[in-house]
């Protein structure tokens, strides 16, 4: 069954901006799905429509088979959402915010309190339960919004840039947490600008640009389409000049660091053989960016150049 099914979704705002130009998507139950795109691509509008915060112009949305046109409350009952922007009552206490959300989903008070304790403990906020939301740090507020979305045990959790502005330690603990709840059966849709995050967590990816879905694949298949990877090599000895490595484009970032573009048809063994042949000792290797980030950048860059070509 599809956790989410979107067909020909169109949104034209009153000011004439066409945010969505007929997107179609399917998200399988249990999936961890990345919805990516540059700023203004239409991701947040799509999420707004799915969660009924934005009225659609045309198209169809089904959440676990429930149409948002005919069976909106049943669709909403399956959903939990963590929006991009903070939308907390900053004057209310942490525990109240989560318990009230449970109540809005029809969960009895006692059960809501118990569930609120569970999610607040999972997100390391239980000790802060009596503080008002405005006294929390940015990262804590983000976690509070996740706790609030999870208190109703949603079957589909939508996270719109949940780790924006969160430090790396908290981000990684949130990744672990999200993997765990996904493993326990919650379908997750994630939008993020941290593509490393999407690559690490998600099994499927869709890329939206200018209101259209331009890619929609399993993550592994998508990553395999990468034509070349850029890797960074740290060398033991300083390099006075850029070495010549047959078949590889090399740039010297500093005397101890080389940036090498490895085409898809070549492998790293060939690169290391070439390096050994010219007497370079490598002490460490890493990708310049995540593979997804490289693909994403290439996609948008190609689109930009084709647009420029068309304009010419």
């Amino acid at each position, binding site marked *: 069954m599809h956790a989410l099914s979107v067909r020909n979704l169109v949104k034209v705002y009153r000011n004439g901006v066409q945010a969505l130009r007929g997107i179609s998507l399917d998200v399988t139950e249990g999936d961890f799905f990345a919805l990516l795109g540059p700023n203004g691509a239409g991701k947040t509008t799509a999420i707004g429509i799915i969660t009924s915060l934005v009225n659609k112009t045309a198209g169809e949305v089904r959440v676990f088979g429930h149409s948002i046109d005919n069976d909106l409350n049943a669709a*909403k009952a399956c959903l939990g959402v963590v929006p991009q922007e903070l*939308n*907390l009552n900053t004057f209310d206490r942490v525990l109240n915010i989560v318990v009230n959300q449970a*109540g*809005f989903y*029809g969960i009895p*008070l006692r059960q809501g309190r118990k569930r609120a304790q569970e999610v607040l403990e999972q997100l390391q906020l239980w000790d802060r339960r009596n503080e008002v939301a405005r006294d929390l740090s940015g990262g804590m507020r983000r976690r509070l919004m996740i706790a*609030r979305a999870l208190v109703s045990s949603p079957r589909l959790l939508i996270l719109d840039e949940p780790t924006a502005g969160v430090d790396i330690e908290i981000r990684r603990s949130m990744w672990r947490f999200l993997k765990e709840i996904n493993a326990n059966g919650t379908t997750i849709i994630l939008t993020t600008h941290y593509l490393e995050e999407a690559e690490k967590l998600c099994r499927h990816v869709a890329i939206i640009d200018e209101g259209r879905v331009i890619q929609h694949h399993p993550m592994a298949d998508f990553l395999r389409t990468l034509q070349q990877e850029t890797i960074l090599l740290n060398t033991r000895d300083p390099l006075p000049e850029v070495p010549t490595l047959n078949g590889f484009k090399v740039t010297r970032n500093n005397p101890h660091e080389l940036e090498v573009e490895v085409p898809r048809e070549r492998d790293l063994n060939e690169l290391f053989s070439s390096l050994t042949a010219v007497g370079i000792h490598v002490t460490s290797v890493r990708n310049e960016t995540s593979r997804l980030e490289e693909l994403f950048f290439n996609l948008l860059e190609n689109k930009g150049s084709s647009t420029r070509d068309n304009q010419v």
Partner: protein
Amino acid sequence: MSLEQQLISLLTLVRKEVGRVIRIWLQTIVPPIITMSLYFVIFGNLIGQRIGEMGGFEYMQYIAPGLIMMSVITNSYGNVVSSFFGAKFQRHLEEMLVSPMPTYAIILGHVAGGMVRGLMVGAVVTLIALFFTEVKIANVFITLSVVVLTSAVFSLGGLVNAIFAKKFDDISIIPAFVLAPLIYLGGIFYSISLLPPIAQKISLLNPILYMVNAFRYGMLGVSDIDITHAYIIILTFAVGLFGVCMILIKKGVGIRE
């Protein structure tokens, strides 16, 4: 959502809204009490002594129901308009909009908060009135039903205002330029029999006149208008405004893109 779940969602919002009224009691309860005490001292006591009787009662006694009603109207309206607009402004209204909570529960929950504040302030103003005059209740049913219905009407009115409001100015324009003139010209301080005939006819277009007079009838047994007409008008406004709120929230006017 089952009926029980709908009721739980409604009670959650009622608890939240009533909790807000009580939590910020210095803003919600105390200021209207001070204002109404000043009305009793200045209009009732100092000026009222020179006016003498009105409608067969001492002036202070005559205006007491009107002052109670004024506090109920302004506080019911003010509570809902500020609470709902605040939730819109801070965007935590989305907590309810993304949930399966039914529209009627969102309306009734906010209205309950407005009514609790309006009726609490009304009750305290009634107690204050006891220091200045004799407070009679000629008909308990009429007194209570009119005050409760009026509080509901203005809570719903506050909700409509908050739904359309886009900035903070928008939630003060209606109370200042519409509500205040209607209240002051609604027969709180005078009987419309004192007005020239044309002004009496114009006054009959003011719905607050019916509410104040019906409440005065419940307390003192005197009224400028027919009590049945008053009930019809109050109930029409209550049902009409509830319907308007249902349509606006369902359509997402002012709350959805």
